[in-house]
């Protein structure tokens, strides 16, 4: 009988409190958005279900929780804390990426760089709000709008914040269609939005083959700490472009990235245990995340306008908004807003170019911040 009592006192029904309920609702909302609204389902669904899994109340010290060594979740979560999953995801992304539009219009890279200002601005805001430098850097990187990059840097600098930062990053990436368009319209005139981009030149196979090697060396010589992300990213792309290892590239962009995505999402979600997640810090992080995305978008657009002051060949400043990557969401938004202004204005390919450089840009920023703050 006392066994029965004792068991009941270990059930979730007994251990649950309002915080678990809140988190279960949050998780359900994520799942709902993923399925009903199809917002980034590949990310929101695993994370959402992970939140459910991670917030089932259980008796601590039992070897069950994601933070208890020897639990299955702990081992699966190791891929996050060690940075392995982000690195593998970048391998697959590289094997999917097509840099032709970037290679055809290199100057668009500057927009990808400009959009990174959101990272540093948010970093300063976070410091001002009293976050420690390492926390502030991890929060700032949300402005890079790259899930794996954010998770990677946070795992290295402030592992206790992986949950909230990942959730914030992915939530705002899912909300790109609501965040970016107003900012773009606010900062651009109708005429600017109507600027057409010139037809792109076709890019030779050799260029595509040299780029991954050149990109790796140039980026990582500058910021060696971005090797774990850009190393696999460019490797994946070389496998794809080379055409001589199709079976490897194919595996990288299907099974390998899918597997990493499943376990990354599930465990990141499960890492949001009510007691570690529902803190004032998380509130601050969500607020700053919104700042990060907005500033990133704005600085990209504004930099586009500045470039137009100095170059005679005008570019469409909307493209700056695609510099925040959030692949491929932001590129599509830019395209849509451009179409709104002029139904014959196809910005998609150029926006994709900014996207790619945005990915590289924020990986470099992660390297920079890491090397600033590691010591």
């Amino acid at each position, binding site marked *: 009988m006392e*066994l029965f009592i004792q068991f009941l006192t270990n059930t979730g029904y007994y251990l649950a409190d309002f915080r678990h309920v809140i988190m279960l609702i949050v998780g359900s909302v994520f799942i*709902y958005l993923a*399925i*009903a609204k199809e917002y980034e389902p590949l990310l929101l669904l695993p994370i959402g279900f992970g939140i459910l899994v991670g917030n089932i109340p259980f008796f601590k010290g039992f070897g069950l929780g994601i933070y208890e060594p020897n639990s299955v979740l702990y081992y699966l979560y190791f891929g996050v804390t060690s940075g392995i999953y982000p690195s593998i995801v970048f391998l697959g992304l590289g094997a999917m990426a*097509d840099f032709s539009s970037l290679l055809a219009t290199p100057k668009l890279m500057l927009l990808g760089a400009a959009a990174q200002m959101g990272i540093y601005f948010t970093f300063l805001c976070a410091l001002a709000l009293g976050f420690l430098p390492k926390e502030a850097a991890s929060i700032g990187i949300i402005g890079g709008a790259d899930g794996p990059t954010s998770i990677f840097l946070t795992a290295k600098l402030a592992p206790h914040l992986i949950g909230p930062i990942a959730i914030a990053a992915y939530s705002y990436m899912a909300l790109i269609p609501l965040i970016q368009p107003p900012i773009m319209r606010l900062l651009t005139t109708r005429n600017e939005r109507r600027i057409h981009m010139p037809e792109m030149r076709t890019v030779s196979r050799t260029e595509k083959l040299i780029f991954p090697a050149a990109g790796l060396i140039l980026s990582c010589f500058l910021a060696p700490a971005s090797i774990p992300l850009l190393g696999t990213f460019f490797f994946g792309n070389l496998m794809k472009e080379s055409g001589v290892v199709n079976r490897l590239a194919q595996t990288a962009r299907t099974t390998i990235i899918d597997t990493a995505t499943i376990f990354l999402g599930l465990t990141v979600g499960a890492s949001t245990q009510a007691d570690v997640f529902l803190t004032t810090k998380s509130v601050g992080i969500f607020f700053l995340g919104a700042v990060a995305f907005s500033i990133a978008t704005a600085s990209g657009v504004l930099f586009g306008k500045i470039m137009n002051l100095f170059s005679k060949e005008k570019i469409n400043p909307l493209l700056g908004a695609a510099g925040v990557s959030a692949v491929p969401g932001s590129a599509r938004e830019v395209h*849509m807003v451009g*179409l709104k202004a002029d*139904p*014959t204005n196809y910005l998609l390919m150029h926006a994709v170019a900014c996207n790619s450089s945005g990915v590289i840009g924020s990986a470099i920023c992660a390297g920079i911040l890491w090397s600033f703050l590691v010591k």
Partner: protein
Amino acid sequence: MYGFEAISAHNGWAMAITGVLIVMAGLAILAFVISQLHKVATLLESGFNKQPNQTSEIKARPQASAVPKPPVLDLGEARRHLEPLTAGLGDSFELQHLYKLANSSALPHVHLLIRSLREAGVIIPAGDGRFTWQH
């Protein structure tokens, strides 16, 4: 130690009975909830059904703003516009997804377009009812 002695010594009876009760109770509750699920479902249907409408209005919106643009029917150009859209879907994709994306990118006569891409073998099957771009 063997037999009933061993069982009682290790509190076996209690564990066995409690265990049976709990699993019975657990699945009974689950069974009951499931039997009520279709009611919850009908309530939520509305929510999930928002999606079709919403996507359909997406369809509607750009269609409106799109002036018919014959040259797009040049498949090469069509592909250059559509391929980036599918990048996010991995190396193979389902036509309905491509269709949705194409719509939201406001290309005219999307249906016609995709069909001709299929017929021209620019989009080829990749097994499992998915398709990919001919390289």
